């Protein structure tokens, strides 16, 4: 009985430690992925803003471009009107979009190849970084 309580306490403290060192939470359990739902953002590891910032400025092998080469500084100044702003977008939506490009569920001449080799950790880090930047993106609350 006491062993059980100890184990629970230990798990809980581990969870707290795990969360406090990350910039975005890990997404639920990995069970979704186990069932083959690979297009879900569930199962992503926790994201780190600093790692995402570094990756955002790194040239991709397939395109020779980095994220910010096209989406602008902090993902907030796209060089072309057809490219979305990423700054301030919900991190888990950014992760979902990158997973969709990587897994072939969404297609774009540049993004499909850009995302092809991203790991779950890299997607989580990029999402944490761009989601943490400031922009004028907003939901439609009080828009009408």
């Amino acid at each position: 009985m006491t062993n059980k309580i100890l184990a629970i306490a230990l798990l809980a403290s581990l969870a707290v430690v795990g969360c406090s060192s990350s910039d975005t939470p890990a997404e639920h359990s990995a069970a979704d992925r186990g069932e083959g739902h690979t297009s879900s953002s569930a199962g992503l590891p926790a994201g780190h803003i600093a790692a995402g910032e570094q990756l955002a400025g790194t040239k991709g092998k397939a395109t020779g471009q980095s994220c910010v080469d096209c989406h602008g500084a902090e993902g907030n100044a796209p060089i072309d009107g057809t490219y979305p702003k990423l700054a301030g977008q919900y991190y888990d939506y950014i992760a979902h979009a990158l997973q969709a490009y990587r897994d072939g569920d969404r297609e774009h001449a540049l993004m499909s190849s850009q995302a092809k080799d991203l790991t779950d950790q890299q997607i989580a880090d990029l999402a944490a970084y761009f989601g943490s930047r400031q922009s004028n993106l907003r939901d439609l609350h009080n828009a009408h």
Partner: protein
Amino acid sequence: MMRPLMIAACFLLTTAASVASAQETQAPAAAPAAATATTAPAAVKGDAAKGHQLTYTCQGCHGIAGYKNAYPNYHVPKIGGQSAEYLVNALTEYKKGARKHPTMQAQSQSFSDQDIADIAAFLSSLK
């Protein structure tokens, strides 16, 4: 408990609004749409005021702070302040099935190219 209710409300709003908007925009849009269709179908000019009317429905999901898509589980994206070109492309891709999301596909299929341009003009103008 709340989510099925919200979704049901969303669909009801959607149906009502798309019926209303179809009646509203079909007649006046017919003439200019026919004129531009033969020349440059992509270059539809958006009217933000009309887009304002058309986007009441969108609030059901995009207007609730922190609202999450049911499955896969992620926040419904912020679309206010995004560029008109990106929004036109996104809605057109959903309409054609190139981008997949059941609700967004159903929504976009109820919109004409002119409606999509109007919606994009309004959403991109939000500050």
